[in-house]
């Protein structure tokens, strides 16, 4: 069952990802991205990353994706759903795509990854919190600075006047 669900999620993720990059309509792409992100979230769950799964849903789906859709809407007439989303150099892109899949897949296949057996922790939130407050305090603080900067940047750029 779990196996089935896993493969289902994998299928969903990859399928919608293909749609993201292939769809001729931008809005469809955006929706497909939603499913990809959700699928990835599912995989997170399989990877025992409950906190990250939540963050993924909240930030990615709830934040970034919404931003993207806003972006689409702001740059087009709200009413038109068929915002064209054409592609270029598809053929050579496909070649690159295949090369990368093959090459990276081969790499993944060849490399003897470290694999340590471990049981599923009850939850990850506390550990992450601890890490953030101790080991990764500096990045945590710096990230705030980054967000401040991004905030200023985004607002300044989208400010209508001056």
């Amino acid at each position, binding site marked *: 069952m779990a196996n089935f669900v896993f493969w289902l999620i994998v299928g969903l*993720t990859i399928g919608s990802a*293909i749609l993201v990059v292939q769809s001729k309509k931008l809005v469809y792409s955006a929706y497909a991205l939603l499913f990809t992100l959700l699928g990835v979230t599912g*995989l997170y769950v399989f990877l025992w*990353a409950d906190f990250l799964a939540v963050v993924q849903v909240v930030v990615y789906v709830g934040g970034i994706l919404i931003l*993207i859709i806003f972006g689409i809407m702001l740059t087009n007439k709200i009413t038109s759903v068929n915002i064209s989303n054409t592609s270029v150099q598809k053929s050579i892109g496909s070649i690159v795509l295949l090369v990368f899949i093959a090459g990276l897949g081969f790499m993944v296949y060849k490399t003897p990854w470290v694999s340590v057996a471990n049981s599923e922790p009850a939850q990850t939130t506390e*550990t992450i919190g601890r890490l953030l407050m101790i080991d990764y305090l500096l990045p945590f603080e710096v990230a705030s600075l980054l967000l401040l900067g991004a*905030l200023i940047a985004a607002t300044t750029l989208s400010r209508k006047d001056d």
Partner: protein
Amino acid sequence: MDSLNNYLFVSVILFSLGLFGVITRRNGVAVLMGVELILNAANLNFLAFARFGGMNMAGHVYALFVIVLAAAEAAVALAIIINIFNNYKTINIDEVSELKQ
């Protein structure tokens, strides 16, 4: 499903699709979506390695930061795209091309 490689393969595919999207899409927003795919692929890697590396939480923290940064980046990127739209009335990045000697 309990194999690291499964996750890695998925991530590989996502990554490659992301690259594909980035290099083929004309619409700036769509290109951004490709970037998001790449970031997700990387995150998937981090978490997978974290799990199969003995629940290495550094990977989780990393992934968390990646998500945060992705958000910030998306915000700025979209602000820029909107700006572009205001000036060019298009966001097809290949049409935004006045810069040439």
